[in-house]
């Protein structure tokens, strides 16, 4: 589904990603962990096509297409979803309207008929319940005045609406209390299928109690320096990153 080879990327001439090799197959859940500043969020941004970062080397293939040649919206329509670490507020644009356009674009890409107004409302209600998101928020402006927890739930709600092939969740757990964390993580698990995949970027093992990963990768200084199974996360929680970093050096 996703094949990243020797990916290098920099911002303002400073190299952040220094040769990432990474592969995701349908049905898999990957966790990417690593100390602050190791390039986790940059990796997510580069995948989605954020213009802030310049790809200087390497290739990314997504469902057989060259991802790096696609625009941000093309990547999204093709089923690449990013759960933002800091969801953006869009004053004056209602959630419902925003989602209506986004869903229509995704369906158009998939060659599906547009949804009727009633079908769309039904879908919205159904998917909002996945993350126990208050339906009233749909009439509010995107993320405006949402609490921290609501913003993160809203990311997963949007993921549920758009039904992506590959979801990259960038520190979706940060700033969440225990209940919200459980709701968000359970939501992600509910959306898991054989034909989609999830990449979870996180600092804490806690999230992985709910979203059980098939692989855990450690990113350090722009490279994946270690890959293991879910037990690696537990070990990192106990021992930190030093043992790996020392090995790597």
């Amino acid at each position, binding site marked *: 589904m996703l094949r990243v080879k020797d990916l290098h990327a920099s911002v303002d001439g400073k190299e952040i990603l220094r040769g990432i090799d990474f592969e995701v197959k349908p049905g898999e859940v990957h966790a990417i962990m690593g100390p602050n500043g190791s390039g986790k969020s940059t990796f997510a941004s580069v995948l*989605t096509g*954020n*213009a802030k970062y310049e790809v200087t080397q390497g290739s990314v293939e997504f469902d057989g297409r060259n991802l790096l040649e696609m*625009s*941000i*919206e093309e990547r*999204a*329509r093709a089923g690449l*979803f*990013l759960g*933002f670490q800091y*969801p*953006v*507020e*869009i*004053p*004056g*644009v209602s959630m419902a*309207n*925003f989602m209506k*356009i*986004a869903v229509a*674009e*995704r369906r158009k*890409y998939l060659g599906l008929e547009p949804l009727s107004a009633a079908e769309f409302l039904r879908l919205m209600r159904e998917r909002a319940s996945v993350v126990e998101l208050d339906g009233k928020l749909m009439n509010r*402006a*995107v993320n405006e005045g949402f609490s921290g927890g609501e913003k993160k739930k809203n990311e997963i709600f*949007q993921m549920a609406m*758009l039904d992506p092939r590959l979801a990259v969740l960038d520190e979706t757990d940060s700033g969440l209390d225990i209940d919200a964390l459980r709701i968000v993580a359970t939501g992600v698990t509910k959306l898991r299928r054989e034909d989609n995949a999830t990449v979870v970027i996180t600092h804490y093992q806690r999230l992985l109690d709910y979203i059980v990963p098939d692989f855990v990768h450690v990113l350090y200084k722009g490279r994946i320096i270690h890959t293991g199974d879910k037990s690696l996360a537990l070990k990192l929680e106990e021992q930190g990153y030093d043992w790996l970093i020392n090995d790597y050096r």
Partner: protein
Amino acid sequence: MDKQVEQQRLLEVYLSNIEMIGEGFSGAFNARRRECIEDFRLTGLPRRGDENYLYSQVRELFPEQAEFYFTPPVWLEETVAQSGSDERIVLCNGFSDGTLHRTPQGVVYGSLRAALNGGAQDGVGCYGSAADDKGCALAALNSAFMQDGAFVYVPRGVKAGRRIVIDCRFRTREQAQVCFGRCLVVAGEDAEADIVLEYRVGAGVTADCVVEYRAERGARIRSIQSDEVERGGALLSMNYISQCERSGVESVFADLGDGFSRVDFTTDLAGREAESRLWGLYLAGGDDHTDLNVRVNHAVPDCRSYELVKGVVSGEATGAFSGLVYVAPDAQRTEAMQQCRNLQLSDGARVYARPHLEIYADDVKCSHGATVGQLDGEQVYYMRQRGIGEQEARRLQMRGFVNDILAHCTCERTCDRLRELADEKIERL
């Protein structure tokens, strides 16, 4: 002197048509015209560099070849017949069909000419009280030349219920033309008036329009003004709002046209606990020109005023906002808030924002601010990441920006219409 040529011409036009202009009006009324033309002569058309007209050159809107007509245009009858719907006053180049209506509740609306000349008793006395003697040459010119217009009176305690639409259309065939539009809206004690004022100005027309709003004690006026000026047309719209004790006036203003528009809102808070709220919007692209001036006079204590103005300016267009909140020496416990926020979409676009406070009382809460920014790249990125195309994302963001203002339209139908117009305009930005 060459500099005065436009002004001289206007005076000549007035003098040589004085009989036709004043026909049917009382001697006292026509005497008042003469005072106004004298005011105009003394004040003169705003010159380049005039503090109140820094961004709008209005002299060139009165070219030498411009025509003046002192009788209703031939298309009036047909336009009135087509507009059909009730509680609508149609003004064609400033002229109505001369009728005055009276609802069972006592609301009077229709021709200002008819109202001033014996058709109405209550409310007409307010004519000129808010607009005259304000030192505005363009308003004085209007007072001298006006022959008709729209009149709305809501008597004491009456909630007008339905909105009254004042549909002001200006157009000319080929020749440049100067027209005058005049409206008087009076809400009696504890009355409520809902007004929708629609300006449509065609190419070649300079429309000099004055609207006076008078809110008596405890009255509420809600007004929505939309300006659609065609490219090559010009609207000079002066609104004078005078408010008594405990009255409230809410105005929504939207300039969605493609031409030249200079709009003034002057509010006098003359009675305690009066409240004024204004939401303004201008969208300017191409070589549009839009200039909004808002002045609020807090003359007495315990009044509140609030203004939020938003503008989107692109292409080579000019968008200007000047705001002044004046607080008189004993207007204690005044609360005033004034905000102007602009999006500048291109390097060629010019945005001028001048928020002013002039405070002579010491116990006040006043704030003001102005911003000029660009579209938020983060918002666009976020929307694109959800599959929304870049153009669409930018438009959505603009619509969102604009929505803040239009959301204050209390009339759903007007609101929908304005949204549609704004959407169309955004497509052109």
